C-alpha cells in the first residue's frame, strides 16, 4: 500500500460547492479498502466524509445532495478522468492511479 497523488478540478459551478476552490491536489491511499485498489467509488464516498470537510469547511457535509445522489455523483454532474468521460472508464469501478486528473463539471448551473 502506498500513497497516490490525484488532481481534482471543479468547474461549471461545481466550484461554488467547494468554497470556490477550482483545483485541489490530494494524496490518498492506493488501497482505501484493502486489499482492493482505490476506486472512484472510494473517492466519491470519501468525498463526503474527509476530504470535503478539509477543503470546504463542512460545506458539502451540510448539503451532500448537491453533489451526491444515492452512492454516486449526482446526475447532471459530468466527470472526466484524464480528459475522458468517466462513462467510458467504468465510472465508480475505475481504479485510481497515481497522477490521475479528475474533473467534476456541473451542468446544472446557469444557462
Amino acid at each position, binding site marked *: 500500500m502506498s500513497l497516490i497523488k490525484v488532481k481534482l478540478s471543479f468547474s461549471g459551478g461545481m466550484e461554488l460547492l467547494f468554497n470556490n476552490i477550482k483545483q485541489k491536489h490530494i494524496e490518498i491511499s492506493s488501497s482505501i479498502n484493502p486489499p482492493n485498489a482505490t476506486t472512484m467509488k472510494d473517492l466519491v464516498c470519501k468525498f463526503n466524509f474527509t476530504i470535503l470537510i478539509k477543503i470546504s469547511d463542512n460545506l458539502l457535509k451540510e448539503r451532500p445532495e448537491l453533489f451526491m445522489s444515492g452512492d454516486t455523483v449526482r446526475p447532471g454532474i459530468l466527470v472526466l478522468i484524464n480528459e475522458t468521460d468517466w462513462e467510458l472508464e467504468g465510472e465508480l469501478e475505475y481504479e485510481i492511479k497515481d497522477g490521475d486528473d479528475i474533473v467534476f463539471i456541473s451542468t446544472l448551473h*446557469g444557462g
Partner: protein
Amino acid sequence: MVRPCVICDKERAVVKRPKTGQKVCRECFYYVFETEIHNTIIDNKLFKKSDKVAIAASGGKDSTVLAHVMKLLNERYQYGLELFLLSIDEGITGYRDDSLETVKRNQQQYELPLKIVSYSELYGWSMDQIVKEVGLKNNCTFCGVFRRQALDRGAVMLDVDHIVTGHNADDIAETVLMNILRGDIARLQRCTEICTTGEGCIRRSKPFKYTYEKEIVMYAYFKKLDYFSTECIYSPNAYRGHARTFLKDLEVIRPSAIIGEAFEVKKEVKLPIQGVCKRCGYMSSNELCKACVLLEGLNRGLPKLGIGKTQRMRKVHGDMPRDTAIIPHFNRIQISNGNYDDSNKPNEELQKNNKIDQG
C-alpha cells in the same frame, strides 16, 4: 483498455454520446456535434441568406457555445448571415454584471457587435430594485416576463430578422414537464416548436433543440470556451429545479427521454387568441400584456397587481393614473445605428413620449 472511436476507428474515444451511446474521439465529437446543429438549421430552414440574426447571449454555457457554433457554421457553410450578440442586463449586482463581462469577452473573441438592453432603460426598474419592492417570492415572474419582451425590443433596435437562443434538449424537456404539471395547454403546444413567430414580431428559434446539455458542456470544456456559471442570486428556481432533477434521473435510465416532439392540441380546443397589448403594442393574448400589468403594479406601489387577482385589485384601487410611466410603444422603438453600447442611459426622450402616449 483499448477503445477506439467508433467513427474514425483510429483515435481513442473520450466521450460517450448520450443520444446514441456512441463512443467517439475528440475530433469526431466536434464534427458530429457541429454537423448535427448544421443539419437542424438546414432541415428546419431556420435562416435565409443575408438574414440578420441576434444571438441571445447571457454569458452562460449554452449561449457561449451557441455564439461559437453559429459563427463557425456561418463561415463553414456560407449561410451569409449577419450575426449580432444581444444581451439583457436585468440589473442584478454580483450576478449579471459579472456575466456581462463574459459576454464582452465573447464579443472580442468572436468579433461580433454586441447590444445590451437594460431593464432600467426599458422599464425604469432594475431587478435589484424590483426585489426590494416585491421580495423573493414572485421576482422570477417579473424577470422572465420582462426578459422575453426586452429581447424582442433589443432585436428591433438591432433591426434583425431573427433571434436564436441557447435552449437545449434538456431545457425543452424541463419546460414540457413544467407545462404539463401546470396544465398550461397553450404553452405545451408551443414550447417544443423549433421556431416561433409572433404577429409582426421577430422569428425566434432554438438551434440546440436536439442537442444534449452534456454535449454542450463537454464541447465547451474541450474547446476551453469562456463561460460564466454562477447561479442567479435571486433565484432558487425551485420548480424548474425539481423538474430538472427528475429528468436527469430519467436520463440515466433512458437517455432518449430528453428528446421529444410537440404535443398537438386538438383543433376543437379553444386556445387564447394572440393580439396586441393596447398599451405598449407588444403581442399579448389579453388586452394588456403581462409586462405592462407588472410594471403598472410596480409604479403604483401595488406589486401584486400582475401576480394574483388583477381584476379584483383594479376594483379596489381603480384604473392606472394618467401620469404613471409605461413601456415605450413597440412601434416607436428606434433602430440603433452602429452605436450599440448605450445601454446604461435611461432614455429620457422615450420617458416623455410615454406620458404623451397614454391618452
